[in-house]
């Protein structure tokens, strides 16, 4: 297997964007290509992740983007895996480079939904659930995670105030990220006083609906060295699956796909959770960050909430989670998020994260899942 590297990265701002879906993808891709110091013709193939292209009247995005980049003859693949689309795309890029099919590929994820209504997005996002068992009975995405939150509160005695702390921390981080969607300092009281979306989750426990695109150039090490730019190595990659419906999980507050994906990634990297300097995790709702911290091995089951309470997951804590601001503050353009986490990790590990940089970080982890964690991918990166 080839050693796989990330040689360049680019991202639009996350938030409410005027550009079309295609323009956002083309812009982020062009930025990643420039950042890598290559030209489009150096790319062997592209992986484009997106969920609701229909909302902006464009599906089959791959060839459209290849045409805009002046390389219409290059193969591309459009990938949908709900909120986990970006990391699954990254995994396809990784696997194809590792296998030697291509020396370098482009991976770009994007979403554009803020021009639709709250009802439209809530309705369409629910199609990512196991619709026969969940969405058809009125479950929304906030509702599914709220059910997880109530189960966690019942089992481990966590409070709404505990969850609020996760939001406060991620908003603090996002304040330092010029590309974040919600750049606003908030307090625990702001969270507790915000409108209920799906009890016990309130507006500030939820990630927002965001537009945005993120892109990375993935290549083998020989290509990275020849092109001379800064690069980081992908030292572990893992994927996993869980029952699509919450009702069928062994334990409602354990996401099996995270456990298996991270175990595989740690094994490939030859490290343990203790060796990770920071992680970008899928905090679509505050409860998710807590559950993730346990499933990724940063805290024991039931103790993730304590870790959040004690500030262990803050930027200066022993395992900083979401230095970018996470989905909560940086925003969650669902098809882009998994690639956006790679962009953040690349910037962190190449000293380009500015004020929000984690001092001395050498190993970063990205964790992104689809829906309630029915699909998941975890990647581990190391600075060179």
């Amino acid at each position, binding site marked *: 297997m080839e050693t796989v590297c990330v040689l360049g990265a680019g991202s639009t701002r996350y938030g409410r964007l005027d550009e079309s879906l295609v323009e956002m993808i083309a812009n982020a891709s062009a930025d990643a290509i420039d950042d890598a110091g290559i030209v489009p013709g150096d790319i062997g193939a592209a992986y484009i992740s997106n969920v609701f292209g229909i909302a902006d009247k464009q599906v089959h995005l791959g060839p459209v983007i290849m045409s805009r980049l002046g390389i219409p003859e290059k193969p591309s693949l459009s990938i949908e895996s709900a909120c986990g689309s970006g990391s699954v795309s990254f995994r396809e890029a990784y696997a194809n480079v590792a296998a030697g099919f291509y020396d370098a590929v482009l991976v770009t994820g994007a979403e554009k939904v803020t021009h639709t209504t709250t*009802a439209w997005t809530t309705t369409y996002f629910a199609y990512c659930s196991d619709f026969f*068992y969940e969405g*058809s009975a*009125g479950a929304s995405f906030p509702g599914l995670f709220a059910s997880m939150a109530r189960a966690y509160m*019942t089992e481990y005695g966590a409070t709404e105030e505990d969850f609020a702390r996760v939001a406060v921390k991620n908003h603090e981080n996002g304040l330092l990220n010029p590309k974040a969607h919600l750049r606003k300092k908030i307090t625990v009281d702001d969270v507790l006083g915000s409108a209920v*979306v799906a*009890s016990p989750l309130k507006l500030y426990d939820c990630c927002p609906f965001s537009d945005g695109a993120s892109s990375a150039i993935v290549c083998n090490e020989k290509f990275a060295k020849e092109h001379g730019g800064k690069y980081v190595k992908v030292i572990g990659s893992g994927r996993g699956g869980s029952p699509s419906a919450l*009702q069928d999980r062994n334990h*409602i507050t354990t996401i099996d796909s995270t456990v298996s994906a991270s175990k595989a990634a740690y094994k490939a990297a030859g490290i343990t959770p203790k060796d990770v300097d920071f992680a970008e995790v899928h905090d679509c709702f505050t409860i998710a960050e807590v559950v993730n911290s346990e499933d990724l091995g940063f805290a024991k089951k039931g103790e993730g909430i304590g870790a959040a309470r004690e500030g262990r997951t803050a930027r200066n804590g022993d395992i900083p989670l979401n230095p970018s601001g996470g989905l909560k503050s940086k925003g969650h353009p669902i098809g882009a998020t998994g690639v956006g986490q790679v962009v953040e990790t690349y910037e962190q590990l190449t000293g380009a994260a500015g004020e929000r940089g984690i001092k001395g970080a050498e190993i970063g982890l990205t964790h992104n899942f689809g829906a309630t964690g029915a699909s998941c991918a975890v990647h581990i990166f190391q600075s060179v």
Partner: protein
Amino acid sequence: MSGQKAFSESAKSGKVLLAKCSKCGELHLGTVMFCAKCGSRKFDSQEVDARGTVATYTIITVPPDGFEKYAPYAWVVMALDGTDLRISGFMAGIASPDDLPVGVRIRVTGDDERGVIMERD
């Protein structure tokens, strides 16, 4: 009848359609096609009373299309009596967590455009 249709038909009469693996005895919801434990695709189907307790739930105030007129309502995961299985459904008239403590007894009473309907037992 497809697995999903049959499952909904059972719910209409307050039952859950289950599939018991003929080979290893593992119990599944009726929509399964291969046993998750042994891989067999032979099942004995059985209908049981859809009664149980609240495993967890949420009260939804920002609803998807078709549910506006019912909000706020609960979306509930029920632990099915006498099994390790759970099923999910819609419950009307729940406005506050005090209306539905975790662990309280509930049952399935139907299936319509709101999916599986549940009520307190």
